[in-house]
């Protein structure tokens, strides 16, 4: 493998990894928000003002 092919491969691997970090990171953020909202709604249901 020449130097250019190695660099191409490294860039492609980095691109795929970064993509999954972004997508799964966003999914995780949604999960955290969902849990917080659910907890808030449950608390309100238990202690209505």
């Amino acid at each position: 493998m020449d130097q250019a092919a190695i660099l191409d491969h490294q860039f492609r691997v980095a691109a795929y990894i970064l993509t999954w970090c972004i997508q799964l990171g966003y999914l995780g953020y949604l999960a955290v928000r969902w849990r917080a909202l659910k907890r808030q709604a449950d608390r309100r249901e238990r202690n209505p003002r």
Partner: protein
Amino acid sequence: MKKAGFGFYAVLTLSLMVWGYYQAIYVAPNDAMQGDIFRIIYYHVPLFICTFLLFGISFAGSIGFLSFRHSRPAWAQIADAWALSGAEVGVVCCGNALMLGSMWGRRAWGIWWTWDARLTTTLILWLIYVSYLLMRRFSSGTQVQTLAAVLGIFGALDIPIVYMSNRWWRTQHPAPVFGGSSDAGMAKSMLIPFGWNVLAWMAWAILILAIRFHVERQQQRVAAAEAQEALAGHSIL
């Protein structure tokens, strides 16, 4: 039943993503000119297709909100939730696809970025929807949803400009592979992996959009309950 359906769809999407990855890495051949870096296209283009779909949903949701905000407020809230969800997931996909394009450009052109028509119009599209999200996040008042809907509609006008940019103007960005000149196209050995990845990313975008929509509906319910409590407290005083 609803949970089981969601679980089945999530598993199906995950399987499609794994299959798409396998197709892109192990089945598709190396491009004769570009080598391995070409494989970025299997994520880059499907992500842009998803971006257009998601901003299109935001556009439809914005129109729905403006149409129903007086006559059917409950429908308007649902439309607004679709508009916001489409915009947010679209921003994630568009930003991701721009990043992939930049990485490809670094190896193919030797530069991370150039102010070419396709790249610039796409960056503007992304910035319009980022401003949409910032407005929703940091503004308050009764008119925020209406203003956001108007911005969502005008923002979507950039979608056909992005799509046509490398047809209308000479760009550094590659000429359209699909729907371009008569000699454009893709070899079948690359087209099948590409098709699988488009399908997988569409399924992923719909899954994330559905989750974001449910989060927004929950947010609306919490906000409505808070407003109700505030009103009740006010009437007691």
